[in-house]
């Protein structure tokens, strides 16, 4: 091989190497281009949500219960702070002088969050401090002041359990409500209406696109709006503020009155009486015609404004955590589960009547005690009336008026031992009246209570305990609402409403119908509008929520209705026509060129990178609570809920403006013929009016002629605790108002709970006969 040939080889090698480079670079820049472009966008582009103005919460009359207020917040931005730690400390020391907050505390707050844009160190800062900081900004590098919107409660701590509160998203980020977009540091409703109507109240957050460099510093000139925020809608509650205030007061009074008395604690044997602790209670006022909850009180309560500025984990745990006394955050009206005691008897009577065990004329001799037939020796066989009172000859009506346990013990035994009736006949009727299942109210954390059956007992005991069997005594307990039988106050109210309104079991409503949640505004306008985004101060964009996103932008809200994703969509006539137009902006937002590259959610990055994908074309439309009523209805073969938008009746309650509608949500029509309803209602009326009625002393002097009231007392035994006092009843025109009062460890229902209910009925009748008093006269009845 001569030199020329070898030079040729060298040329060939050179050409090969260059061809390799060319092929490779061409491959990267053509075939792989798409993926690399996406990765390049992911590197630098970062989206951040700008919260929209949150909707307000109004009461029935339109009074504002929860409003927004703009406050000044002082932020510290790490990248703009001096790098030397001594200089940093000096900035915080100077801040301490201005804000009056300890520098150590400021540093602690600053270090508690890792957010490139700035960390909030002080809220509700005075205007003079803000002015000072602004005029001396050179002394405070890295310190900035922004305006922020926060919740304010004009009515103080009225109905806190219904309203709920707003808090840091925290773990909810993993499974956000209504499948919407959230990011670290967002606030959202944690409980109550704030939670269940989160998607309505929240509106549609704006989207700002940031560009960051390798060190995650924001390139200010590249910041732009992708979408403007759309304010959330107001929610108008069915709660009547005045009535709510009154009910809360009456419950508190009733508990205070009970504490001045005492009784025996049920521990299976007789012990000396002790004072009633009466630590907690709740009351519900329910409209039996519409299903609207007019008042819902739970005691002890709390002040939701404590949560506005955020509450430290330690404080929260100490005051509201699992070990806090009496769990003040718990809404006992829906989350408290109590043995209903004698308040369950009307349903047992209906069951016995419908199953043919008795008719309205059937009587038994109540001797004050009942002994189980063929009773085995090793179990309890004799059961007594409260106080061993003998009521003599008792029929259905009388059994309710005097609350004869023996009457119902006998029914309980017959259902279990006689072959002619369904063994679970009582339980089936309970379930028909809604016990053992959620009522479907749009409030989170509703409990479903418990209706014990032989099957549930066996399931609970498991295979290892075959000895645990359902006995006659268990059926006796079921027949008087004791033992494992549990109900929430709202369940009782809804069940009694079905007695009051001829057998219509309604799902309680807590709010009037709301407009559907907002959807992104017209995409070209929003996406192209570079509004006020190129300012030199990069933090101005996310921070300017209140100033740039005022309520005046409501006009940009699309008027088209959003199709409901819930199954009960009978009130969505325009659903199909609006589907295409309203879902399009969402789709376009998702498929916009800048968004394709955004990968899955990465909450680990403090700097709010998020996925756009979760916004599907099917945002939940209707104010469906998070635990939606459609899903949480009992699975006992209940028919589908039927919604009807109805007119709001004119009544003694606050006037509801025209145009506000409420959807009456029918769960089912229960089997309640007039043959049984008449004696049951007569018996319940007798509880109030008859001289032997268990609530007669409490209602002494009540004008039942002008404001008829019927009801039932209940006294539930709780092991090692004082009795739970209950009263459930209804009154007013056409039995309109159902009132349920449950007081924990407060003694007999007729003595502790009935007076509270009486005071509430007085309020519904527009009167006030003074504070609740404990009834000491009359017989002790369950």
């Amino acid at each position, binding site marked *: *091989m001569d*030199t*020329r040939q*070898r*030079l040729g*080889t*060298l*040329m060939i090698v*050179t050409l090969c*190497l*260059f061809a*390799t*480079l*060319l092929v*490779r*670079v*061409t491959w*990267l*820049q*053509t075939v*792989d*281009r798409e*993926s*690399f*472009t996406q*990765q*390049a*966008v992911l*590197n*630098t582009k970062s989206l951040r949500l700008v919260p929209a103005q949150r909707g307000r919460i109004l009461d029935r009359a339109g009074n504002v219960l929860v409003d927004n207020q703009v406050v000044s917040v002082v932020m510290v931005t790490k990248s703009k702070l001096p790098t030397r730690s001594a200089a940093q400390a000096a900035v915080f020391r100077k801040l301490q002088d201005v804000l009056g907050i300890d520098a150590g505390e400021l540093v602690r707050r600053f270090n508690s969050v890792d957010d490139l844009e700035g960390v909030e160190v002080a809220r509700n800062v005075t205007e003079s401090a803000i002015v000072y900081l602004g005029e001396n900004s050179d002394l405070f590098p890295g310190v900035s002041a922004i305006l922020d919107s926060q919740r304010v409660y004009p009515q103080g701590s009225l109905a806190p359990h219904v309203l709920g509160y707003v808090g840091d998203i925290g773990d909810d980020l993993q499974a956000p409500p209504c499948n919407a977009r959230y990011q670290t540091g967002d606030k959202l409703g944690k409980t109550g209406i704030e939670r269940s109507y989160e998607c309505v109240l929240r509106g549609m957050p704006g989207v700002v696109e940031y*560009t*960051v*460099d*390798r*060190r995650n510093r924001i*390139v200010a000139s590249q910041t732009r709006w992708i979408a403007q925020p759309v304010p959330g809608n107001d929610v108008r509650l069915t709660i009547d503020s005045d009535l709510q205030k009154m009910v809360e007061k009456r419950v508190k009074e009733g508990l205070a009155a009970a504490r001045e008395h005492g009784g025996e604690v049920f521990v299976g044997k007789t012990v000396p009486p002790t004072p009633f602790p009466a630590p907690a209670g709740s009351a519900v006022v329910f409209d039996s015609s519409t299903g609207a909850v007019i008042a819902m009180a739970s005691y002890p309560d709390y002040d939701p404004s404590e949560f506005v500025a955020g509450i430290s984990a330690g404080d929260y745990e100490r005051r509201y955590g699992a070990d806090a006394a009496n769990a003040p955050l718990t809404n006992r009206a829906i989350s408290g589960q109590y043995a209903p005691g004698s308040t369950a008897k009307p349903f047992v009577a209906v069951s016995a009547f419908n199953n043919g065990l008795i008719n309205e004329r059937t009587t038994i001799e109540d001797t004050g005690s009942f002994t189980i037939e063929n009773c085995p020796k090793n179990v309890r066989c004799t059961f007594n009336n409260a106080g061993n009172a003998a009521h003599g000859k008792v029929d259905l009506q009388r059994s309710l008026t005097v609350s004869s346990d023996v009457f119902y013990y006998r029914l309980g035994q017959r259902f279990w031992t006689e072959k002619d009736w369904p063994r679970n006949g009582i339980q089936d009727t309970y379930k028909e009246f809604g016990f053992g299942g959620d009522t479907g109210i749009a409030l989170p954390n509703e409990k479903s209570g418990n209706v014990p059956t032989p099957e549930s007992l066996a399931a609970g005991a498991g295979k290892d305990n075959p000895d645990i069997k359902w006995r006659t005594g268990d059926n006796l307990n079921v027949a008087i609402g004791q033992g494992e039988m549990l109900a929430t106050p709202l369940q009782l109210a809804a069940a009694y409403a079905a007695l009051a309104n001829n057998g219509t079991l309604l799902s309680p409503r807590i709010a009037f119908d709301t407009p559907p949640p907002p959807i992104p505004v017209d995409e070209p306008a929003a996406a192209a509008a570079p509004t006020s985004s190129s300012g030199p101060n990069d933090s101005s964009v996310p921070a300017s929520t209140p100033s740039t996103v005022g309520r005046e932008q409501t006009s940009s809200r699309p008027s088209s209705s959003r199709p409901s994703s819930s199954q009960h969509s009978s009130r969505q006539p325009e659903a199909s026509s609006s589907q295409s137009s309203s879902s399009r902006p969402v789709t376009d937002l998702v498929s916009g060129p800048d968004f394709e590259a955004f990968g899955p959610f990465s909450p680990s990055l403090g700097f709010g990178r998020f996925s756009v994908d979760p916004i599907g074309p099917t945002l939940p439309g209707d104010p469906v609570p998070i635990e939606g009523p459609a899903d949480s209805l009992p699975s006992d073969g209940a028919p589908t809920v039927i919604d009807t938008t109805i007119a709001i009746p004119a009544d003694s309650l606050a006037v509801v403006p025209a145009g506000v509608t409420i959807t009456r949500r029918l769960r089912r029509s229960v089997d309640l013929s007039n043959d049984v309803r008449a004696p049951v209602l007569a018996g319940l009326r007798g509880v109030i009016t008859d001289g032997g009625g268990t609530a007669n002393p409490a209602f002494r002097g009540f004008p039942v002629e002008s404001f008829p009231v019927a009801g039932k007392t209940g006294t539930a035994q709780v092991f090692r605790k004082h009795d739970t006092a209950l009263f459930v009843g209804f009154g007013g025109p056409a039995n309109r108002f159902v009132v349920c009062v449950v007081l924990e460890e407060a003694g007999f229902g007729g003595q502790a709970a009935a007076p509270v209910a009486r005071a509430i009925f007085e309020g519904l009748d527009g009167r006030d006969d003074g504070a609740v008093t404990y009834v000491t006269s009359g017989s002790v009845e369950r």
Partner: protein
Amino acid sequence: MTLTDTLSTRRHRAAGVRPDSPFLHVDWVLIACTVMLSATGLVLIRSTGANNLRLVERQSLFLVLGLAALVTMMTLDYRNLLDNAVFIYGGTVLSLVLVLLIGQEHKGAQGWFDIGPMQLQPAEFAKVGVIISLAAYGSGQRNFLDARRFVIVLMLTAVPTALIFIQPDLGSALVFLAIVFAMLWIAGAPPRLLLALVAGGIVVVFAAVRLGVLAEYQVNRLLAFTNPGGKASGIAFNVTQSKIAIGSGGLLGKGLNQGTQTQYGFVPEQHSDFIFTALGEQLGLAGCAVVLLVFGILLARIWRAAASARDTGGTLICVGVMALLLFHVFQNVGMTLGIMPITGIPLPFLSYGGSATLTSFAAVGLVLSVEMRRFR
């Protein structure tokens, strides 16, 4: 012999200039290539950040000095250089020994002399020195390159290579292997000896990794190439960002100063070793193809000079320079494209850097010196 040559020869003959006068045979295309690449480099260095004006100023100075070096080298008769190769070789080795003794350490390698604001890297100049030295030895060997001479050539190369290797600067050391390989090939070395040389090179690299001669970051670069997910994934990240930059450039690029990868610092060493990513992202496939094409023309012209050189020494010089530039280009661009490991050697004419720029221009000047004297 081209038509232009003939015409200009006639014209100059008419003006009384001898037709074989070297300055009638300057390869202006070759010079134009270096100027085009250098100008592109300046623009790209400017585009790698908002505060790069100082770098642009310094690089402009380097380019002026480089052009001066080029003119100086082409003015000098390469045969005089070959005759004085002993001194050049000695000076090269001496500078490499001195830098190990009194030089400054940058990026973990003892390879720089700090002279005022300038930092000189003798390893760069040594490349030209070794090319001249080997060419000088080779030009004396008219006959078949036997094993003994082969070993002598290797020894001549091994001394400066080893001195650079222990700085440690693996990338530059490998350049010497490429140079000596190409020059031995052209000098007529038997293929089996060359294969042995390649095998030896691989063994040396492995040994270097194993014995801890290299700085840790250099080892990591090699490990990152062989195992991207391993403990050196930080370096793999750099390669990934480099590929993202180039790939996202697409056909026409994002436009100068518009590259997000380039502008926001996602690629390391963008103004120097990774300048090609700035090109790929901002000027796209079009820019990359043009630059590679110009490099191709440059190398083709050097190859032409090698083929037309008057003597073996001239041919070997041109081949050495060609190997030098080819290795730099392939290794550097290949690194940014993820097909070669990161070894930290610059892209000639485009990357920011004084010593490398001077060396590249001097090397081309050397080729010009050979080519323009092909007729006498």
